C-alpha cells in the first residue's frame, strides 16, 4: 500500500460565507429598504462569492452594515415621504452606525468558533446605545439575535430550517409593526425582547451542537484515513443499499466489495446483467453513496465534501450518453470543457484531437440530434476523455461502435494506460477485456466472486494456460483418449467439451509448459488415429464466466497468474469432471 493521507471533512468556507451572505440579504430584504439588500449584496456577498475572503470576513460586514442601514433608512423615508427625517444628517448617520455595529456583531458571531451569550450581550448593548433612540435597543437586540440564529443555521447547512426561520422572522416583524401601529409600543418591545432572547439561546445551543458535530466528523475522518491510498483508486468493504420505492424496503444491492487499482492499471468488470458492474462504476464516480465502507480516488475520499475535487479526476462514459440533442457537437464539447475548467487556449486543440481520434471530425458542426447512435456514443466518450482524467470509468464503451472505431477506442484506452490513467471498464465483450485489462473482476449478485490477473507472460487470464484441440469426427470412442493424454508429461487437466459441428470433438487440456507438451499431445492424438486440425488457446466462454456455478477451470492459470477467489466458490462440476 502506498502513502496515506488525511482527508479532512471540512465544510467549504465559500459555502459558509455564501450561505451567510444570502441569509443576510434575505433578512435585510425582510426588514425594509430597497437599497439595503443591494448594498449588502454588493459589499458582502460579492467578495464572499468571488474571493478575497479576509476582506469579506472582517471589513465587508461592518462596511456593508453601515451602508445597508443608511440605504435602508433612506429607502424607508423615501417610500413614506418623510423628508424631514431624511434631511436630519446626524440622525441618519447615527442610525447607520448603530445598525452597522449590529451587522459587525453578526459577522463576529458567524466568524467566531465559540460565541457565548456574554458576547451577544456585550456586542448588542453598546451597539444599541449608539443609536439615538433608546427603544432601538430592543429592535437591535431582536435583529441581532435572529440574525445569529439564522447564521448558525446557515453554517450548519440546514436550509429548510433556515427558510422556516426566515418566514418566522418576517411574520414576527409584521406582528410587531402591527402592535406598534395599534398603539402597543411597549408591548411590541417586550415581545421583541422575548423572542430575541429565545432566538439567541437557540443560536448558542445550535452553535455548540455544530462544534460537537464537527469534532465527531473529524475523528471519524481520522479513523478512516488508514485505508486511503494516494497512488490508487478503490473501494473497501463497500455496501450499497437500493431503495425500493415501491415496496418501501431496502435490500442489499452491492457488496461488501473490496478492490483497488493502481495508477495506469486497467480493470475489467465482468458478469451477467444485474451483477453490479454499473453500480460499482456509479459508486466510483461518486454518484451512489455507499452505506458502509470506503471509496477513494488517488487519496481523496469519495464523499459529498469532495465531490467536485473527485469529479475533476474522473471521466465517466455511462451507458446512457445523456447528450443535449439541440446542441452542436463542437459547442457541446466546449460546454463541458468550460465546466472541467480546461484553459481556453487548450480547448480547441483538445477537441480537435479527440474528434480525430474518434473519427467525428465530419460531424463537428452537426446538431447532436442528427448523429447516429454510434456517433453519439463516441461523443460521450470524447466528453469523458476531454479533461484527460486520471480515472476513466467506461460502461460498455464500444457497444454501439463499428469494429474499426471500436479498435481506435481501444487504442486510445491503451494510450491512456501508458499515461498512468487508471481505467475501469464494465463490459460483456471478452475480447475487449482480454485486450485491455490487467485484472478482471468477475461479479455476481453485487459481489466479486473471482479475480483474474493478466499474465506477465502475455497469456490472457481468460485463456489461463489452457489449450484446445479440435478433432475431426472419428469412429473412435472418446474415453481412452483422456487417460492416455492425462498420462503425458506436462498435461495437468484434460477434458472434452462439445464441438460446434456435429461429430466434432473438442479436447481441452491445461499445461504450464506448452512448448514441450503441445507437440506431445498432438503426436499422441495422431498415434491414436485422431485427426487434429486446430490447436488454439482455450478461452473461457461467456457462459462459463457468467454461470452461477462459476465454471472456471482455470486452476492452473490461477496458481501461476495470481488468481484468487472471493466469496468461497466451491469446486465446480467442470473441475470434478477432469481426469
Amino acid at each position, binding site marked *: 500500500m502506498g502513502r496515506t493521507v488525511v482527508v479532512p471533512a471540512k465544510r467549504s468556507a465559500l*459555502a459558509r460565507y455564501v450561505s451567510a451572505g444570502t441569509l443576510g440579504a434575505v433578512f435585510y430584504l425582510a426588514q425594509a429598504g430597497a437599497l439595503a439588500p443591494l448594498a449588502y449584496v454588493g459589499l458582502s456577498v460579492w467578495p464572499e462569492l*468571488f474571493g478575497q475572503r479576509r476582506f469579506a470576513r472582517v471589513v465587508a460586514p461592518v462596511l456593508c452594515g453601515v451602508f445597508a442601514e443608511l440605504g435602508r433608512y433612506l429607502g424607508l423615508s423615501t417610500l413614506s415621504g418623510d423628508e424631514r427625517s431624511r434631511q436630519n444628517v446626524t440622525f441618519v448617520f447615527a442610525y447607520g452606525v448603530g445598525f452597522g455595529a449590529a451587522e459587525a456583531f453578526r459577522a463576529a458571531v458567524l466568524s467566531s468558533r465559540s460565541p457565548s451569550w456574554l458576547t451577544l450581550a456585550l456586542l448588542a448593548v453598546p451597539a444599541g446605545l449608539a443609536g439615538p433612540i433608546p427603544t432601538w435597543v430592543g429592535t437591535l437586540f431582536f435583529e441581532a439575535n435572529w440574525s445569529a440564529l439564522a447564521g448558525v443555521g446557515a453554517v450548519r447547512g440546514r*436550509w429548510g430550517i*433556515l427558510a422556516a426561520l426566515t418566514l418566522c422572522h418576517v411574520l414576527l416583524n409584521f406582528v410587531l409593526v402591527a402592535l406598534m401601529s395599534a398603539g402597543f409600543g411597549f408591548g411590541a418591545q417586550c415581545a421583541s425582547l422575548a423572542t430575541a432572547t429565545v432566538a439567541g439561546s437557540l443560536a448558542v445551543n445550535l452553535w455548540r451542537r455544530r462544534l460537537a458535530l464537527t469534532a465527531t466528523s473529524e475523528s471519524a475522518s481520522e479513523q478512516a484515513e488508514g485505508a486511503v491510498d494516494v497512488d490508487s483508486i478503490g473501494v473497501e468493504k463497500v455496501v450499497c443499499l437500493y431503495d425500493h420505492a415501491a415496496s418501501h424496503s431496502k435490500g442489499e444491492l452491492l457488496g461488501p466489495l473490496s478492490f483497488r487499482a493502481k495508477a495506469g492499471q486497467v480493470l475489467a468488470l465482468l458478469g451477467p446483467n444485474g451483477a453490479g458492474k454499473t453500480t460499482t462504476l456509479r459508486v466510483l464516480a461518486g454518484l451512489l453513496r455507499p452505506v458502509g465502507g470506503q471509496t477513494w480516488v488517488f487519496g481523496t475520499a469519495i464523499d*459529498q465534501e469532495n465531490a467536485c475535487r473527485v469529479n475533476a479526476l474522473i471521466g465517466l462514459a455511462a451507458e446512457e450518453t445523456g447528450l443535449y440533442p439541440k446542441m452542436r457537437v463542437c459547442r457541446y464539447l466546449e460546454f*463541458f470543457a468550460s*465546466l472541467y475548467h480546461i484553459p481556453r487556449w487548450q480547448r480547441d486543440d483538445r477537441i480537435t484531437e479527440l474528434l480525430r481520434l474518434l473519427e467525428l471530425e465530419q460531424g463537428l458542426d452537426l446538431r447532436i440530434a442528427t448523429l447516429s447512435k454510434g456517433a453519439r456514443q463516441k461523443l460521450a466518450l470524447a466528453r469523458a476523455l476531454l479533461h484527460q482524467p486520471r480515472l476513466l470509468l467506461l460502461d460498455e464503451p464500444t457497444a454501439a461502435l463499428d469494429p474499426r472505431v471500436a479498435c481506435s477506442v481501444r487504442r486510445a484506452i491503451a494510450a491512456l494506460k501508458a499515461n498512468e490513467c487508471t481505467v475501469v471498464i464494465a463490459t460483456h465483450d471478452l475480447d475487449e477485456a482480454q485486450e485491455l485489462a490487467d485484472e478482471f473482476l468477475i461479479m455476481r449478485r453485487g459481489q466479486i466472486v473471482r479475480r483474474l490477473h493478466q499474465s506477465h507472460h502475455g497469456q490472457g487470464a481468460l485463456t489461463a494456460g489452457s489449450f484446445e484441440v479440435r478433432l475431426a469426427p472419428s469412429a473412435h470412442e472418446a474415453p481412452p483418449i483422456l487417460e492416455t493424454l492425462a498420462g503425458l508429461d506436462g498435461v495437468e487437466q484434460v477434458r472434452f467439451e462439445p464441438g460446434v459441428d456435429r461429430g466434432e470433438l473438442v479436447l481441452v487440456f491445461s499445461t504450464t509448459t506448452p512448448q514441450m507438451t503441445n507437440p506431445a499431445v498432438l503426436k499422441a492424438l495422431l498415434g491414436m488415429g485422431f485427426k487434429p486440425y486446430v490447436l488454439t488457446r482455450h478461452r473461457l466462454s461467456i457462459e462459463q464466466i457468467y454461470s452461477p456455478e462459476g465454471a472456471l477451470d482455470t486452476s492452473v492459470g490461477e496458481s501461476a497468474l495470481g488468481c484468487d477467489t472471493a466469496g468461497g466458490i466451491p469446486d465446480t462440476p467442470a473441475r470434478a469432471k477432469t481426469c
Partner: protein
Amino acid sequence: MLTMSADARDTFVIVWRELCDLACDKALVIVVAGSTFGLPLYLGYLAATQHLAASHMPAWGLEVVLLEVFIASTTALQGLAVEREQGTLLPLIASPVSDLALFLGRALPAVLLSAGQSAVALGLFLMMLAVREPAMLSGFKPATVLLVSASALSAAMMCAGLGISLGSRMRSSRAIGLTLTLSSLGVVSLESALGLWGMFDPVGRALASDLTMTQPALGLAALAAGAALYRRAKLVQSLWR
C-alpha cells in the same frame, strides 16, 4: 480586482447553455415573443379604450407582469422534465460543478427570463397607456411600480425555487411538468393577492413598504430552500429509483 470564482463561472456557463437551448426552440420563442410583446400592448390598448379609473391601472400592470412570469417560468423550468427524459443530468452531476452552481444554473434562466419578460411587458403596457390615455399613468406612483416589480421578481424566484425543489424529487417527466405548472400558478395567484392587498386594502397600504421588501425575501427564501433540496446525492437517487 476581484476574480470570478469557479462557481460563478460554472453558473454562467450552465445558464448560458440553458438560455441558448431555449432560444433554439422556435415554438417557445414564438410563445414568449407573443406574450411579451402582443399581450401587454393589447391589454394596454384595452385599458385605455375602456376609460377605466387611473387608480386601477397598477392592478392591471401587476396582472400583466405576473402573467409573463407564469409563462416564462413554466416554459424555462420545463427543461427539468426534458432533462429527466433525455438523461442529460448525469454528465452534469458527474462534472466538477458544485451543487450551488448546478442549482443556480437551473434557477437563474427561469428568473432571468421571467424578470426580463415582465420588465419588457410592463414597459410596453405603460407605453401603450402613455400613447392612448396619458392621464391613466397618474395611477402609477413610484411606490406602486416598486410593489409591482417586487411582486414579479418575487414570483419568479419562488417559481424557480419551488419548481426545482419539487421537480428534483420526481421521476416521471409528465409529473414534473404538471407540478411546475401548478406550483407556478399557485405562486402567481399568491403574489397577485398580496400585490392587490398592498394596493387596495387600508392595512395592506399601511404595510405596503414592508410588503414590497418582504415579497422578494419570500422569493429568496424559496430559492434558498430549493438550493438546499437540490443535492447531488438526492438527485441521483431520483434518477435511478
